[in-house]
């Protein structure tokens, strides 16, 4: 029934809700004021009662504000941990790759260094402006293609290759989560 509100721009919706609720209260006051005055005897301590009512509103507002602040902080912390996870898996991947034979070891590690520098020098300033740069995905794809093209020749290399791919998947997952937070 009220699904149309999701098509309204946020600022207009805020204005609409405020005007509707304030208008409803004003209308109620205007319509019931004279009757309520007749029913309720004049009290000397109205100000005290109004003070209590306002304090109750203050508590409700404070609770809502506190809950929003906690939710925002949790989101911030989760994204911070995701960034740390992406960097940690990149480091682990670098270590794993150091067990590969030459020349693919040097090639893969050079790609990882390039990706890390790209993140620090280009991707980070861009995402501080709310922009996701394209270069990161291209670098990760190039690394993936080179990694998957490797054919292990010994049982040790097979185990290492499987672990490296697993770590690469964890890295890609953390990277995606970071990008969703931009």
């Amino acid at each position, binding site marked *: 029934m009220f699904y149309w509100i999701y098509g309204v721009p946020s600022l207009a919706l805020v204005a609409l809700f405020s005007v509707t609720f304030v208008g409803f209260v004003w209308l109620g006051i205007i319509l019931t004021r004279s009757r309520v005055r007749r029913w309720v005897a004049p009290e000397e301590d109205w100000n005290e009662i109004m003070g209590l009512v306002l304090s109750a509103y*203050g508590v409700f507002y*404070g609770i809502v*504000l*506190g809950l*929003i*602040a906690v939710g*925002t*902080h949790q*989101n*911030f912390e989760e*994204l*911070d941990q995701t*960034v*740390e996870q*992406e*960097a*940690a898996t*990149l*480091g682990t991947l*670098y*270590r794993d790759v150091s067990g590969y034979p030459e020349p693919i070891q040097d090639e893969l*590690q050079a790609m*990882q*260094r390039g990706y*890390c*520098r790209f*993140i*620090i020098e280009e991707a*980070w300033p861009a*995402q*501080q*402006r*709310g922009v996701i740069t394209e270069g990161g995905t291209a670098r990760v794809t190039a690394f993936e293609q080179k990694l998957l093209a490797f054919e292990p020749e010994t049982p040790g290399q097979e185990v290492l290759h499987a672990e490296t791919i697993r770590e690469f998947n964890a890295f890609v997952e953390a990277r995606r989560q970071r990008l969703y*937070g*931009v």
Partner: protein
Amino acid sequence: MELWYVVIIGVTVFLIAAMDHPFRGTLSISPQAFEIVLRTLMTPSS
């Protein structure tokens, strides 16, 4: 008393606004984790 109440509300609203976009503004997530990886692991001299 009211002054402190307003200050607390103001600081809370500021924190919400500052942390709502974790990569923007002065109170944001830094690339420090990547810098550490690059400096301590990927730099040949380290």
